[in-house]
């Protein structure tokens, strides 16, 4: 089976993004001292690596090879929101990003003419994504004593604004490829 080039690009984009996430969380998991966060971060890293594998396998089953794409979506976050400089800020930016991922995958799964293999891959990944949102939410809650609830709330707000900016920019840049998969950002 051959797929159209827009779907080929989008699935390759998902794969690249999952690889970037895995590499980033892998490095963080290596840096952190033993703790519950280290344990969850390690599982999160493994999930992201698996997701990249699922998309690679999915592309293979669709009869195409992954496209080699430049800098992943996440890289643009740093330019838009400033560099996260502590664990709380990293978890906050991850929480915002994971929500974006869930929204995007949900929209994709509901769009017309989704090949079964793509729908199945999204379904598999979404099970992990729900856990990602949960563990980060809980970890941020636990950090309130150290970083302050208001500080965490403000950080989430700052990264949410940056996320909207980056998503809108990316959607405009790749409008023809994304088409119906573009989310409303208002």
């Amino acid at each position: 089976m051959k797929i159209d080039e827009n779907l080929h690009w989008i699935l390759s984009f998902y794969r690249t993004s999952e690889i970037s996430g895995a590499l980033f969380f892998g490095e963080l998991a290596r840096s952190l001292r033993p703790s519950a966060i280290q344990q969850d971060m390690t599982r999160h890293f493994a999930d992201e690596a698996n997701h990249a594998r699922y998309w690679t396998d999915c592309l293979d089953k669709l009869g195409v090879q992954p496209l080699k794409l430049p800098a992943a979506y996440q890289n643009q976050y740093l330019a838009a929101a400033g560099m996260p400089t502590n664990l709380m800020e990293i978890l906050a930016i991850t929480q915002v990003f994971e929500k974006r991922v869930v929204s995007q995958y949900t929209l994709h799964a509901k769009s017309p003419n989704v090949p079964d293999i793509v729908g199945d891959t999204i379904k598999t990944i979404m099970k992990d994504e729900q856990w990602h949102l949960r563990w980060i939410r809980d970890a941020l809650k636990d950090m309130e004593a150290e970083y302050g609830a208001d500080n965490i709330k403000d950080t989430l707000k700052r990264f949410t604004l940056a996320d909207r900016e980056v998503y809108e920019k990316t959607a405009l840049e790749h409008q023809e490829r994304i088409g119906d998969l573009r989310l409303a950002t208002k």
Partner: protein
Amino acid sequence: MSNKERVREKIAETLGHTSEMVPDDAELTSLVNNSFLLVELVIELQEEFDVRFQQVDMNEVVTVGQLLDLVGSRMAEKSSG
């Protein structure tokens, strides 16, 4: 080895350089090929030396020397507090 040199060694190790390759006046962005490595570096330093930074602290940091000063001052605050 002084704390400053321990921190410099950790910076060098994290960025895949030798201590001689990270002098005080080297700009951090010139030592990395992507911004995520800088994020990993600041987390590594905080975990290793048990200190905390805020984004506002890092806004002032451009060079290795400034990062050494920041870690040093946080370590001093911790030991005096």
